Protein backbone atom coordinates (compact mmCIF):
# COMPACT_ATOMS: atom_id res chain seq x y z
CA UNK A 1 0.00 0.00 0.00
CA UNK A 2 1.30 3.45 -0.88
CA UNK A 3 -0.43 6.70 -0.13
CA UNK A 4 -2.64 8.04 2.59
CA UNK A 5 -4.64 5.83 4.92
CA UNK A 6 -7.56 6.83 7.06
CA UNK A 7 -8.11 4.22 9.74
CA UNK A 8 -11.39 4.97 11.55
CA UNK A 9 -11.20 1.84 13.69
CA UNK A 10 -7.92 2.82 15.30
CA UNK A 11 -8.67 6.54 14.85
CA UNK A 12 -5.43 6.93 13.00
CA UNK A 13 -4.16 8.66 9.89
CA UNK A 14 -1.07 7.30 8.19
CA UNK A 15 1.11 8.12 5.22
CA UNK A 16 2.68 4.92 4.01
CA UNK A 17 5.08 3.91 1.29
CA UNK A 18 5.02 0.15 1.00
CA UNK A 19 6.35 -1.26 4.26
CA UNK A 20 7.47 2.13 5.50
CA UNK A 21 5.28 4.22 7.75
CA UNK A 22 6.39 7.71 6.79
CA UNK A 23 4.08 9.61 9.11
CA UNK A 24 1.27 8.71 11.46
CA UNK A 25 -0.91 10.23 14.13
CA UNK A 26 0.52 7.57 16.44
CA UNK A 27 3.36 10.04 16.54
CA UNK A 28 6.42 9.31 14.40
CA UNK A 29 7.97 12.40 12.92
CA UNK A 30 10.24 14.74 14.79
CA UNK A 31 8.95 18.21 14.06
CA UNK A 32 11.49 20.99 14.26
CA UNK A 33 10.50 24.66 14.17
CA UNK A 34 12.41 26.11 11.22
CA UNK A 35 13.67 29.12 13.18
CA UNK A 36 17.41 28.74 13.70
CA UNK A 37 18.42 29.96 17.15
CA UNK A 38 22.01 31.13 17.45
CA UNK A 39 23.91 32.09 20.56
CA UNK A 40 27.39 33.33 19.88
CA UNK A 41 30.37 33.91 22.12
CA UNK A 42 28.82 32.67 25.37
CA UNK A 43 31.42 32.50 28.08
CA UNK A 44 31.75 29.33 30.09
CA UNK A 45 34.17 29.79 32.96
CA UNK A 46 35.65 26.87 34.91
CA UNK A 47 37.19 28.73 37.86
CA UNK A 48 40.43 27.93 39.61
CA UNK A 49 39.28 25.62 42.43
CA UNK A 50 39.92 26.57 46.07
CA UNK A 51 43.59 26.36 46.91
CA UNK A 52 45.43 24.43 49.55
CA UNK A 53 48.98 23.52 50.39
CA UNK A 54 50.95 20.65 51.81
CA UNK A 55 54.47 21.31 53.03
CA UNK A 56 56.84 18.50 53.73
CA UNK A 57 60.10 18.42 55.61
CA UNK A 58 62.83 15.90 55.22
CA UNK A 59 65.83 15.83 57.47
CA UNK A 60 68.91 13.69 57.16
CA UNK A 61 71.94 13.41 59.38
CA UNK A 62 75.34 11.96 58.64
CA UNK A 63 78.09 11.55 61.18
CA UNK A 64 81.55 10.26 60.40
CA UNK A 65 84.10 9.98 63.19
CA UNK A 66 87.61 9.01 62.31
CA UNK A 67 90.99 9.11 63.91
CA UNK A 68 91.95 12.38 62.36
CA UNK A 69 88.74 14.19 61.60
CA UNK A 70 85.06 14.13 62.33
CA UNK A 71 82.50 15.15 59.84
CA UNK A 72 78.93 16.01 60.39
CA UNK A 73 76.31 16.72 57.77
CA UNK A 74 72.76 17.68 58.41
CA UNK A 75 70.53 18.30 55.48
CA UNK A 76 67.02 19.61 55.80
CA UNK A 77 64.73 20.01 52.84
CA UNK A 78 61.25 21.35 52.66
CA UNK A 79 58.99 21.05 49.68
CA UNK A 80 55.61 22.51 48.91
CA UNK A 81 52.85 20.68 47.03
CA UNK A 82 50.19 23.04 45.81
CA UNK A 83 46.72 21.60 46.07
CA UNK A 84 43.20 22.15 44.93
CA UNK A 85 40.54 21.44 47.49
CA UNK A 86 37.54 19.25 46.84
CA UNK A 87 34.63 21.02 45.18
CA UNK A 88 31.29 20.39 43.52
CA UNK A 89 30.29 23.39 41.43
CA UNK A 90 27.58 23.96 38.84
CA UNK A 91 26.70 27.22 37.09
CA UNK A 92 23.95 27.57 34.50
CA UNK A 93 23.14 30.28 32.03
CA UNK A 94 19.74 30.46 30.38
CA UNK A 95 19.91 30.94 26.63
CA UNK A 96 16.23 31.25 25.74
CA UNK A 97 12.79 30.09 26.84
CA UNK A 98 11.72 27.01 24.94
CA UNK A 99 8.57 27.37 22.81
CA UNK A 100 5.41 25.84 24.21
CA UNK A 101 5.35 22.11 23.56
CA UNK A 102 9.03 21.87 22.59
CA UNK A 103 10.84 19.06 24.34
CA UNK A 104 14.01 18.74 22.29
CA UNK A 105 16.72 21.02 20.98
CA UNK A 106 18.63 19.71 17.98
CA UNK A 107 21.77 21.57 17.13
CA UNK A 108 25.49 22.11 17.35
CA UNK A 109 28.06 23.52 19.74
CA UNK A 110 31.41 25.03 18.86
CA UNK A 111 34.07 25.53 21.55
CA UNK A 112 37.08 27.77 21.71
CA UNK A 113 39.31 27.93 24.77
CA UNK A 114 40.40 31.48 25.51
CA UNK A 115 42.13 30.81 28.83
CA UNK A 116 43.82 27.61 29.93
CA UNK A 117 45.57 26.39 33.08
CA UNK A 118 49.05 27.74 33.69
CA UNK A 119 50.53 24.47 34.95
CA UNK A 120 50.04 20.75 34.57
CA UNK A 121 47.60 19.13 36.97
CA UNK A 122 48.98 15.95 38.46
CA UNK A 123 51.74 15.99 35.89
CA UNK A 124 49.31 16.21 32.98
CA UNK A 125 48.74 19.22 30.77
CA UNK A 126 45.03 20.02 30.81
CA UNK A 127 43.95 20.07 27.18
CA UNK A 128 40.41 20.39 25.87
CA UNK A 129 39.02 16.92 25.22
CA UNK A 130 36.37 17.62 22.54
CA UNK A 131 37.27 19.01 19.11
CA UNK A 132 37.94 22.73 19.18
CA UNK A 133 36.67 25.32 16.69
CA UNK A 134 34.47 22.72 15.02
CA UNK A 135 30.73 22.30 15.04
CA UNK A 136 29.78 19.35 17.23
CA UNK A 137 26.28 17.88 16.80
CA UNK A 138 25.42 18.18 20.46
CA UNK A 139 23.24 15.77 22.38
CA UNK A 140 23.27 16.08 26.17
CA UNK A 141 26.61 16.46 27.93
CA UNK A 142 30.25 16.73 26.98
CA UNK A 143 33.46 16.05 28.90
CA UNK A 144 35.49 19.22 28.43
CA UNK A 145 38.60 18.70 30.59
CA UNK A 146 39.84 16.11 33.03
CA UNK A 147 42.73 14.70 35.02
CA UNK A 148 43.31 12.90 38.30
CA UNK A 149 40.71 14.36 40.65
CA UNK A 150 39.33 16.90 38.15
CA UNK A 151 36.33 16.68 35.86
CA UNK A 152 34.83 19.56 33.89
CA UNK A 153 31.58 19.06 32.00
CA UNK A 154 29.29 21.10 29.76
CA UNK A 155 25.58 20.35 29.43
CA UNK A 156 23.22 21.82 26.81
CA UNK A 157 19.71 20.85 27.90
CA UNK A 158 16.13 22.03 28.21
CA UNK A 159 15.44 22.33 31.92
CA UNK A 160 12.65 24.25 33.59
CA UNK A 161 11.29 25.26 30.20
CA UNK A 162 14.53 26.96 29.18
CA UNK A 163 17.46 26.03 27.00
CA UNK A 164 20.41 26.16 29.35
CA UNK A 165 24.17 25.99 29.07
CA UNK A 166 25.45 24.44 32.28
CA UNK A 167 29.05 24.32 33.50
CA UNK A 168 29.89 21.60 36.03
CA UNK A 169 33.20 21.22 37.87
CA UNK A 170 34.17 18.51 40.34
CA UNK A 171 37.43 18.20 42.31
CA UNK A 172 38.42 15.05 44.20
CA UNK A 173 39.01 14.41 47.92
CA UNK A 174 42.04 15.23 50.01
CA UNK A 175 45.22 13.21 49.79
CA UNK A 176 45.60 10.39 52.27
CA UNK A 177 47.00 11.24 55.67
CA UNK A 178 46.18 14.89 55.21
CA UNK A 179 44.74 15.46 58.67
CA UNK A 180 46.71 18.42 59.84
CA UNK A 181 50.15 17.01 60.35
CA UNK A 182 51.59 13.60 59.83
CA UNK A 183 54.99 11.96 59.53
CA UNK A 184 56.76 8.69 59.67
CA UNK A 185 58.49 9.52 62.89
CA UNK A 186 57.18 11.09 66.08
CA UNK A 187 57.62 14.83 66.12
CA UNK A 188 60.47 14.68 68.57
CA UNK A 189 63.94 13.21 68.69
CA UNK A 190 64.11 12.94 64.95
CA UNK A 191 67.85 13.28 64.95
CA UNK A 192 69.40 10.89 67.40
CA UNK A 193 72.78 11.96 68.63
CA UNK A 194 75.63 10.28 66.83
CA UNK A 195 73.26 8.05 64.93
CA UNK A 196 74.27 7.80 61.34
CA UNK A 197 71.44 8.27 58.88
CA UNK A 198 68.82 9.30 61.37
CA UNK A 199 66.28 11.80 60.34
CA UNK A 200 62.65 11.92 59.36
CA UNK A 201 59.90 13.13 57.18
CA UNK A 202 57.12 15.34 58.35
CA UNK A 203 54.18 17.00 56.64
CA UNK A 204 52.12 19.98 57.53
CA UNK A 205 48.86 20.23 55.71
CA UNK A 206 46.74 23.22 54.88
CA UNK A 207 44.68 21.52 52.26
CA UNK A 208 41.60 19.36 51.82
CA UNK A 209 42.25 18.30 48.26
CA UNK A 210 44.46 16.96 45.56
CA UNK A 211 48.16 17.83 45.30
CA UNK A 212 48.44 19.03 41.74
CA UNK A 213 51.84 20.59 41.27
CA UNK A 214 55.27 20.93 42.75
CA UNK A 215 58.72 21.71 41.43
CA UNK A 216 62.32 22.12 42.43
CA UNK A 217 61.57 25.81 42.80
CA UNK A 218 59.27 24.88 45.64
CA UNK A 219 62.09 23.10 47.42
CA UNK A 220 64.22 24.87 49.97
CA UNK A 221 67.28 23.13 51.35
CA UNK A 222 69.47 23.96 54.26
CA UNK A 223 72.70 22.14 54.70
CA UNK A 224 74.88 22.30 57.72
CA UNK A 225 78.25 20.66 57.58
CA UNK A 226 81.34 20.91 59.58
CA UNK A 227 84.39 18.88 60.40
CA UNK A 228 86.46 17.82 63.42
CA UNK A 229 86.38 17.54 66.26
CA UNK A 230 82.76 16.62 66.96
CA UNK A 231 82.28 13.34 68.72
CA UNK A 232 79.84 14.32 71.39
CA UNK A 233 78.46 17.69 70.46
CA UNK A 234 77.62 18.42 66.83
CA UNK A 235 77.07 22.13 66.33
CA UNK A 236 73.56 23.49 65.98
CA UNK A 237 72.15 20.15 66.75
CA UNK A 238 68.48 19.94 66.07
CA UNK A 239 66.66 17.02 67.52
CA UNK A 240 63.37 17.45 65.71
CA UNK A 241 61.90 19.06 62.66
CA UNK A 242 61.65 22.81 62.71
CA UNK A 243 58.46 24.70 62.17
CA UNK A 244 57.90 24.69 58.49
CA UNK A 245 56.98 28.30 58.79
CA UNK A 246 60.62 29.06 59.43
CA UNK A 247 61.45 28.08 55.90
CA UNK A 248 61.02 30.53 53.04
CA UNK A 249 57.56 30.59 51.51
CA UNK A 250 57.40 29.79 47.85
CA UNK A 251 54.36 31.50 46.40
CA UNK A 252 51.86 29.38 44.48
CA UNK A 253 52.32 30.15 40.80
CA UNK A 254 49.50 27.94 39.57
CA UNK A 255 46.13 28.90 38.18
CA UNK A 256 43.81 26.19 36.85
CA UNK A 257 41.08 28.41 35.50
CA UNK A 258 39.79 27.57 32.00
CA UNK A 259 37.51 29.82 30.00
CA UNK A 260 35.70 28.84 26.83
CA UNK A 261 33.85 30.89 24.26
CA UNK A 262 30.88 28.79 23.22
CA UNK A 263 28.70 29.14 20.14
CA UNK A 264 25.39 27.31 20.02
CA UNK A 265 22.95 27.00 17.13
CA UNK A 266 19.97 24.79 16.56
CA UNK A 267 16.27 24.19 16.42
CA UNK A 268 13.57 23.52 18.95
CA UNK A 269 11.19 20.74 18.25
CA UNK A 270 9.01 18.00 19.50
CA UNK A 271 8.67 14.29 19.02
CA UNK A 272 5.22 14.18 17.42
Amino acid at each position, binding site marked *: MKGFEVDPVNRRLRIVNGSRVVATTDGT*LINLIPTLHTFSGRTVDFPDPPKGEIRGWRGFQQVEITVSTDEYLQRQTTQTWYCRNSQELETAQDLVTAPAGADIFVGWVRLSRTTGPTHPWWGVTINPLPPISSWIPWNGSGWIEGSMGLTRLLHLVIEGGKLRLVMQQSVGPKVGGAGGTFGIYPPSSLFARRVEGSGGIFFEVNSSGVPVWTSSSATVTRTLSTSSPLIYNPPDYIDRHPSLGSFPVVADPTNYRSVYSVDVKGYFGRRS
Partner: protein
Amino acid sequence: MPMTAYREFPAAGVVALFDEAPGGGDPKDITSLRNRPARFPESWLANVYLHNLLNNMEVVIDQTVGITHAAFASASGEFDPGTAATDRYDTDATQVDFDLVTHNLGYEPLVLVALGDDILTPGYPVQNAPVTNGSGRYCCPFVTTTKVRLHEYRTRAISGLPSVARSYRVLVMRQPRTPTGRMLREFNPTTGALSLGRDTFNSGRRYLQVVPGGSPFGLSHGRTMDAKRGAPRFVAPDGTIFDPIPNTANVRFLDGPQPPSEPYSYNGSFTGDGAIQVQAP
Protein backbone atom coordinates in the same frame (compact mmCIF):
# COMPACT_ATOMS: atom_id res chain seq x y z
CA MET B 1 -15.32 18.15 20.15
CA PRO B 2 -11.74 18.58 18.82
CA MET B 3 -10.70 15.89 16.44
CA THR B 4 -7.65 14.79 14.48
CA ALA B 5 -7.75 16.38 11.07
CA TYR B 6 -5.89 16.44 7.80
CA ARG B 7 -6.52 19.82 6.14
CA GLU B 8 -5.17 21.80 3.24
CA PHE B 9 -5.33 25.57 3.03
CA PRO B 10 -4.26 26.52 -0.51
CA ALA B 11 -4.39 30.25 0.02
CA ALA B 12 -2.04 29.99 2.97
CA GLY B 13 0.07 27.29 1.35
CA VAL B 14 -0.44 25.05 4.35
CA VAL B 15 -1.07 21.34 4.61
CA ALA B 16 -1.17 19.77 8.03
CA LEU B 17 -2.13 16.71 10.01
CA PHE B 18 -3.03 17.78 13.53
CA ASP B 19 -5.25 17.60 16.59
CA GLU B 20 -7.59 20.54 16.52
CA ALA B 21 -7.36 23.26 19.11
CA PRO B 22 -10.39 24.12 21.25
CA GLY B 23 -12.75 26.81 20.11
CA GLY B 24 -14.44 25.46 17.02
CA GLY B 25 -15.07 27.53 13.94
CA ASP B 26 -15.22 26.84 10.23
CA PRO B 27 -12.95 23.85 9.45
CA LYS B 28 -12.10 25.33 6.08
CA ASP B 29 -11.01 28.66 7.51
CA ILE B 30 -7.39 28.64 8.69
CA THR B 31 -8.14 31.55 11.00
CA SER B 32 -10.68 29.48 12.98
CA LEU B 33 -9.69 28.74 16.54
CA ARG B 34 -9.79 25.00 15.82
CA ASN B 35 -7.15 25.45 13.13
CA ARG B 36 -4.57 27.27 15.23
CA PRO B 37 -2.13 24.31 15.10
CA ALA B 38 -2.19 24.60 11.31
CA ARG B 39 -1.82 28.36 11.33
CA PHE B 40 0.74 28.62 14.18
CA PRO B 41 2.51 25.26 14.35
CA GLU B 42 5.46 26.69 16.29
CA SER B 43 3.07 27.51 19.15
CA TRP B 44 1.06 24.28 18.96
CA LEU B 45 3.80 21.70 18.62
CA ALA B 46 2.03 19.25 20.89
CA ASN B 47 -0.93 19.14 18.47
CA VAL B 48 0.96 18.70 15.22
CA TYR B 49 1.82 15.38 13.55
CA LEU B 50 2.78 16.77 10.17
CA HIS B 51 3.07 20.29 8.84
CA ASN B 52 4.75 21.43 5.65
CA LEU B 53 6.33 24.41 7.42
CA LEU B 54 8.15 22.25 9.99
CA ASN B 55 11.47 20.48 9.44
CA ASN B 56 11.09 16.71 9.66
CA MET B 57 14.80 15.84 9.58
CA GLU B 58 15.12 14.24 6.15
CA VAL B 59 17.90 11.65 6.05
CA VAL B 60 19.97 11.94 2.88
CA ILE B 61 22.99 9.83 3.78
CA ASP B 62 22.97 6.58 5.71
CA GLN B 63 26.36 4.90 5.75
CA THR B 64 28.12 2.49 8.05
CA VAL B 65 31.82 3.16 8.40
CA GLY B 66 34.42 0.90 9.96
CA ILE B 67 37.14 2.54 12.04
CA THR B 68 40.14 0.83 13.59
CA HIS B 69 41.24 2.59 16.73
CA ALA B 70 44.90 2.13 17.61
CA ALA B 71 46.20 0.68 20.83
CA PHE B 72 47.52 3.05 23.50
CA ALA B 73 49.82 2.61 26.46
CA SER B 74 49.37 3.04 30.19
CA ALA B 75 49.39 6.32 32.07
CA SER B 76 52.66 8.09 32.56
CA GLY B 77 53.05 7.10 36.20
CA GLU B 78 53.26 8.82 39.49
CA PHE B 79 53.21 12.51 39.94
CA ASP B 80 56.40 13.73 41.63
CA PRO B 81 57.92 10.23 41.81
CA GLY B 82 59.04 9.10 45.21
CA THR B 83 57.08 11.69 47.08
CA ALA B 84 53.43 11.56 46.10
CA ALA B 85 51.84 8.79 44.16
CA THR B 86 48.64 7.16 43.22
CA ASP B 87 47.28 4.42 41.10
CA ARG B 88 48.02 5.58 37.60
CA TYR B 89 45.47 7.70 35.78
CA ASP B 90 45.64 10.53 33.28
CA THR B 91 44.14 11.87 30.07
CA ASP B 92 46.25 11.04 27.04
CA ALA B 93 47.82 14.00 25.27
CA THR B 94 47.27 12.13 21.99
CA GLN B 95 43.93 12.80 20.32
CA VAL B 96 42.99 11.41 16.91
CA ASP B 97 40.53 12.55 14.24
CA PHE B 98 39.00 10.28 11.60
CA ASP B 99 36.97 10.95 8.48
CA LEU B 100 33.63 9.16 8.53
CA VAL B 101 31.58 10.40 5.59
CA THR B 102 32.06 12.98 2.86
CA HIS B 103 28.69 14.70 2.40
CA ASN B 104 29.64 17.79 0.31
CA LEU B 105 26.39 19.54 1.23
CA GLY B 106 28.14 22.90 1.50
CA TYR B 107 26.93 23.50 5.07
CA GLU B 108 27.30 21.83 8.45
CA PRO B 109 24.40 19.38 8.56
CA LEU B 110 22.57 17.79 11.43
CA VAL B 111 24.21 14.44 11.97
CA LEU B 112 23.60 11.44 14.15
CA VAL B 113 26.35 8.85 14.57
CA ALA B 114 25.34 5.54 16.11
CA LEU B 115 27.38 2.76 17.65
CA GLY B 116 25.24 -0.28 18.12
CA ASP B 117 21.87 1.01 19.25
CA ASP B 118 23.21 4.18 20.88
CA ILE B 119 23.61 7.55 19.23
CA LEU B 120 26.93 9.05 20.24
CA THR B 121 26.89 11.92 22.68
CA PRO B 122 29.77 14.43 22.75
CA GLY B 123 32.36 12.09 24.23
CA TYR B 124 30.84 8.64 24.22
CA PRO B 125 32.87 5.72 25.63
CA VAL B 126 33.44 3.35 22.70
CA GLN B 127 35.86 1.05 24.52
CA ASN B 128 36.41 0.21 28.16
CA ALA B 129 38.95 -1.96 29.96
CA PRO B 130 37.70 -5.50 30.67
CA VAL B 131 38.08 -4.70 34.35
CA THR B 132 37.51 -1.04 35.07
CA ASN B 133 40.84 0.58 35.81
CA GLY B 134 40.53 4.09 34.45
CA SER B 135 41.37 3.38 30.82
CA GLY B 136 38.77 4.38 28.30
CA ARG B 137 38.40 5.47 24.70
CA TYR B 138 35.84 8.17 23.89
CA CYS B 139 34.56 9.55 20.59
CA CYS B 140 32.81 12.77 19.63
CA PRO B 141 31.43 13.40 16.12
CA PHE B 142 31.89 16.78 14.50
CA VAL B 143 31.02 18.23 11.11
CA THR B 144 32.45 20.50 8.46
CA THR B 145 30.80 21.81 5.30
CA THR B 146 32.05 18.74 3.46
CA LYS B 147 32.60 15.95 5.99
CA VAL B 148 31.41 14.14 9.05
CA ARG B 149 34.41 13.39 11.25
CA LEU B 150 35.09 11.58 14.51
CA HIS B 151 37.30 12.88 17.33
CA GLU B 152 38.88 10.38 19.72
CA TYR B 153 40.39 11.05 23.13
CA ARG B 154 41.47 8.67 25.86
CA THR B 155 41.98 8.20 29.56
CA ARG B 156 44.82 5.94 30.62
CA ALA B 157 45.39 3.88 33.74
CA ILE B 158 47.81 1.23 34.91
CA SER B 159 47.30 -0.40 31.54
CA GLY B 160 46.20 1.04 28.24
CA LEU B 161 43.78 -0.45 25.77
CA PRO B 162 44.38 -2.66 22.75
CA SER B 163 43.42 -1.77 19.22
CA VAL B 164 39.72 -2.13 18.49
CA ALA B 165 37.50 -1.99 15.42
CA ARG B 166 34.17 -0.25 15.57
CA SER B 167 31.35 0.25 13.04
CA TYR B 168 29.70 3.64 13.12
CA ARG B 169 26.40 4.25 11.36
CA VAL B 170 26.22 7.82 10.13
CA LEU B 171 22.89 9.53 9.41
CA VAL B 172 23.16 12.91 7.71
CA MET B 173 20.11 15.16 7.58
CA ARG B 174 19.78 17.92 5.05
CA GLN B 175 18.38 21.41 5.48
CA PRO B 176 14.64 21.73 4.77
CA ARG B 177 13.80 21.77 1.11
CA THR B 178 12.63 24.88 -0.67
CA PRO B 179 9.04 24.53 -1.93
CA THR B 180 8.79 23.69 -5.63
CA GLY B 181 5.81 23.65 -7.96
CA ARG B 182 2.27 24.59 -7.06
CA MET B 183 0.72 21.43 -5.67
CA LEU B 184 -0.09 21.18 -1.98
CA ARG B 185 -0.87 17.51 -2.47
CA GLU B 186 0.11 15.22 -5.27
CA PHE B 187 0.14 11.46 -5.56
CA ASN B 188 2.37 9.73 -8.06
CA PRO B 189 0.65 6.51 -9.12
CA THR B 190 3.84 5.16 -10.64
CA THR B 191 6.03 5.47 -7.58
CA GLY B 192 3.26 5.51 -5.00
CA ALA B 193 4.81 8.55 -3.41
CA LEU B 194 2.67 11.19 -1.76
CA SER B 195 4.00 14.73 -2.08
CA LEU B 196 2.74 17.45 0.27
CA GLY B 197 3.34 21.15 0.74
CA ARG B 198 4.84 21.79 -2.70
CA ASP B 199 7.07 18.78 -2.29
CA THR B 200 8.60 19.88 0.98
CA PHE B 201 7.42 16.53 2.32
CA ASN B 202 7.49 13.41 0.22
CA SER B 203 6.77 9.87 1.33
CA GLY B 204 9.47 8.66 -1.03
CA ARG B 205 12.09 10.20 1.23
CA ARG B 206 13.37 9.02 4.60
CA TYR B 207 12.69 10.95 7.76
CA LEU B 208 13.98 10.46 11.27
CA GLN B 209 11.11 8.94 13.19
CA VAL B 210 9.99 7.78 16.58
CA VAL B 211 8.41 4.42 15.85
CA PRO B 212 7.70 1.18 17.60
CA GLY B 213 9.44 -1.90 16.27
CA GLY B 214 12.26 -1.97 13.76
CA SER B 215 15.84 -1.32 14.87
CA PRO B 216 15.84 2.08 16.49
CA PHE B 217 18.70 4.04 17.98
CA GLY B 218 18.56 5.63 21.39
CA LEU B 219 18.79 9.42 21.27
CA SER B 220 19.53 10.74 24.73
CA HIS B 221 17.08 13.18 26.20
CA GLY B 222 18.65 15.60 28.68
CA ARG B 223 21.98 15.21 30.46
CA THR B 224 24.20 12.27 29.63
CA MET B 225 27.03 12.79 32.13
CA ASP B 226 27.60 13.76 35.73
CA ALA B 227 30.65 14.35 37.94
CA LYS B 228 31.32 13.71 41.63
CA ARG B 229 34.45 13.47 43.72
CA GLY B 230 36.45 14.62 40.74
CA ALA B 231 35.33 11.69 38.56
CA PRO B 232 32.98 11.48 35.57
CA ARG B 233 30.03 9.19 34.95
CA PHE B 234 28.66 8.41 31.51
CA VAL B 235 25.12 7.16 30.93
CA ALA B 236 24.40 5.81 27.48
CA PRO B 237 20.98 6.20 25.80
CA ASP B 238 20.21 2.58 26.63
CA GLY B 239 20.86 3.33 30.32
CA THR B 240 24.26 1.66 30.52
CA ILE B 241 26.38 3.36 33.15
CA PHE B 242 30.15 3.69 32.79
CA ASP B 243 32.33 4.98 35.61
CA PRO B 244 35.86 4.95 34.19
CA ILE B 245 37.70 5.51 37.47
CA PRO B 246 37.73 2.49 39.80
CA ASN B 247 37.34 2.54 43.56
CA THR B 248 40.99 1.58 43.89
CA ALA B 249 42.16 4.96 42.57
CA ASN B 250 43.48 7.04 45.44
CA VAL B 251 46.18 9.56 46.27
CA ARG B 252 48.80 9.19 48.99
CA PHE B 253 52.35 10.18 49.82
CA LEU B 254 54.88 7.45 49.28
CA ASP B 255 57.13 8.45 52.13
CA GLY B 256 56.23 6.39 55.15
CA PRO B 257 53.09 4.26 55.46
CA GLN B 258 50.73 7.08 54.64
CA PRO B 259 47.11 6.02 54.40
CA PRO B 260 45.35 6.30 51.06
CA SER B 261 42.77 8.95 50.37
CA GLU B 262 39.09 8.29 49.82
CA PRO B 263 38.60 6.72 46.41
CA TYR B 264 38.71 9.10 43.49
CA SER B 265 35.84 7.27 41.83
CA TYR B 266 32.38 8.64 41.11
CA ASN B 267 30.02 8.39 44.09
CA GLY B 268 26.92 10.20 42.82
CA SER B 269 23.49 8.85 41.87
CA PHE B 270 22.92 10.04 38.29
CA THR B 271 21.24 7.40 36.12
CA GLY B 272 20.51 9.40 32.98
CA ASP B 273 17.58 11.48 31.76
CA GLY B 274 16.18 8.89 29.39
CA ALA B 275 16.19 8.52 25.63
CA ILE B 276 13.83 8.44 22.67
CA GLN B 277 14.07 5.68 20.13
CA VAL B 278 14.51 6.95 16.57
CA GLN B 279 15.19 5.43 13.18
CA ALA B 280 15.00 6.32 9.52
CA PRO B 281 13.01 3.55 7.83
